[in-house]
């Protein structure tokens, strides 16, 4: 199952490392696919645009009105889809590598639940959309993460304790959300469910810009920190023996992961399943032992953009419905393939 690696060394500049051709190919392929879906996404809408005209508008040629439609109306949503998928995919990969558990995902450990209770609470109080919802979602996610970390901290944290405490917090938040849903008026409940499932409708630049800025900071930071992941995978003792500052590394990596999830959730709600499935899909496609950061991110982007396209063209439902409905069978298929080959997932 493990793909080949190529080791290289340059004389000048003194750069050397390990290349994994299959992983690179997967990243490039998925990145390209994401871009294609990104452009296709912008062709959908009341004002008909072909792919050619979208591309022309992107490079600031072509009809002026086309450019307005693309830049003002279509791009925020498409870009949000791309970035949200990217953020969730990368965040899921981080969580799963740090906790050494393929089932760990921000949805499981309570961060999405924190955002959910904040947003649904907001809806019941009258803050239904836009910047208000976004801020609440961000605040809820961050607060949940802080609470989980603090509660799990006892002379340091372990992946195991974080998961368990996260489940407890998730349970409380989910119950509170159910309570609010039952108390709300029906139209508020509808609005809430629409957000809870993961939704890119009504996304404008005021949602997408903060997301873009946040990722512009978080992604490079994460990539720099990712070196620590290589040793953390081997267990705390071995990692410490190899000179990794285990507690600090785990804290910073979790911070990055939470940041990615929080901003993604703030923009589009807790889009079902992406953070859980994308890293596992990427890992199997690339043939590597642990969920690869960039490939997971690209997989997440492809999943969200593809699901959104399908959601709008075929079903008329929010993106989160499709990611769950399609993502789950795909994961199951991958599992079945692995089972037959004997590695059992």
């Amino acid at each position: 199952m493990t793909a080949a690696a190529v080791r290289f060394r340059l004389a000048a500049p003194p750069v050397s490392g390990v290349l994994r051709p299959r992983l690179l190919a997967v990243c490039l392929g998925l990145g390209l696919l994401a871009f294609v879906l990104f452009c296709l996404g912008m062709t959908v809408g009341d004002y008909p645009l072909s792919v050619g005209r979208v591309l022309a508008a992107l490079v600031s040629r072509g009809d002026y009105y086309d450019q307005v439609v693309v830049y003002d109306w279509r791009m925020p949503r498409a870009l949000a889809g791309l970035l949200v998928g990217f953020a969730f995919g990368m965040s899921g990969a981080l969580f799963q590598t740090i906790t050494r558990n393929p089932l760990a995902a921000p949805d499981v450990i309570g961060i999405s639940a924190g955002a959910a209770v904040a947003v649904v609470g907001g809806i019941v109080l009258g803050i239904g959309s836009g910047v208000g919802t976004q801020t609440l979602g961000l605040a809820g996610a961050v607060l949940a993460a802080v609470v989980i970390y603090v509660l799990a901290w006892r002379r340091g944290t372990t992946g195991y304790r974080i998961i368990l405490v996260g489940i407890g917090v998730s349970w409380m938040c989910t119950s509170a959300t159910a309570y609010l849903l039952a108390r709300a008026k029906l139209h508020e409940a509808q609005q809430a469910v629409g957000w809870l499932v993961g939704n890119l409708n009504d996304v404008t630049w005021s949602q997408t810009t903060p997301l873009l800025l946040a990722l512009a900071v978080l992604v490079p930071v994460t990539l720099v920190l990712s070196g620590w992941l290589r040793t953390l995978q081997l267990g705390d003792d071995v990692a410490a023996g190899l000179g990794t500052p285990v507690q600090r590394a785990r804290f910073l990596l979790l911070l990055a992961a939470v940041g990615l999830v929080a901003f993604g959730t703030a923009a589009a709600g807790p889009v079902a399943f992406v953070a859980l499935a994308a890293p596992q899909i990427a890992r199997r496609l690339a043939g590597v032992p642990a969920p690869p950061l960039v490939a997971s991110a690209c997989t997440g982007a492809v999943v969200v953009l593809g699901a959104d396209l399908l959601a709008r063209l075929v079903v008329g439902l929010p993106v989160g419905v499709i990611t769950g409905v399609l993502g789950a069978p795909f994961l199951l298929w991958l599992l079945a393939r692995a089972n037959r080959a004997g590695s059992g997932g």
Partner: protein
Amino acid sequence: MTVELRAAGLRLAYGDRVVVPDLSLLVPPGRISVIVGANACGKSTLLRALARLLAPRSGQVLLDGRSVHALPTRAVARELGLLPQAPVAPDGLTVLDLVTRGRSPHQSWWRQWSSADEQAVTSALRATDLADLADRPVDELSGGQRQRAWLAMAIAQQTPVLLLDEPTTFLDLAHQIDVLDLVVDLNRDEDRTIVMVLHDLNQACRYADHVIAMKSGEIVAQGGPAEVVTPATVEDVFDLTCQVTTDPVSGTPLVIPIGRHHSTESVAR
């Protein structure tokens, strides 16, 4: 280049359970030291404390006179290498990848495969007889091969001091001797200080320059094998009656246990 590793007044505990109340130790530089003792006497705890994995409640672990917890952990990783008990590798990680991870304290993110790295990894693989298995996933190897892969990782780290926690577990006798002979090579040829926890007392006698016998978190005796391994000490530390004779091959003490079914009287029957 030898590095001095010493423990001063160490008090080690897990939660409320004190395992080592007050221990001081100077690890003889450039020698092979073996820590022996019954189960749960604190051997692994001491090793973990020496490796800075466990912060002492009081006392210090000093590397060349400086506290191991005050130094940047990467710097310590270039001096001290550790092979813990029962490590677990992620599914699908190859032997070559695992051994390469041992080079992390020497690497920067733009230099992940320098010629020093390549040389260290290749010689580690050769020394542990794993060159043919380099591309196999670690979790597909047998228990013995896996243990050798982890050992290769610790060797590739190229530290002047190497701490090994029961490195011969899961190995058959031939491979146990291979590993221990390899440890002697590392000590003689590369002048590395070795501290090992071993279960087998006779192997400890054969391969150790310095034996440290522990009981209930304290050092009961330390010194050369002949000084330490006497029937009285074995009785004290292991609660085992024995005779000690001389190993005809290596000239070191050989412990012959006396159990209930074997004694000098019953043999005469």
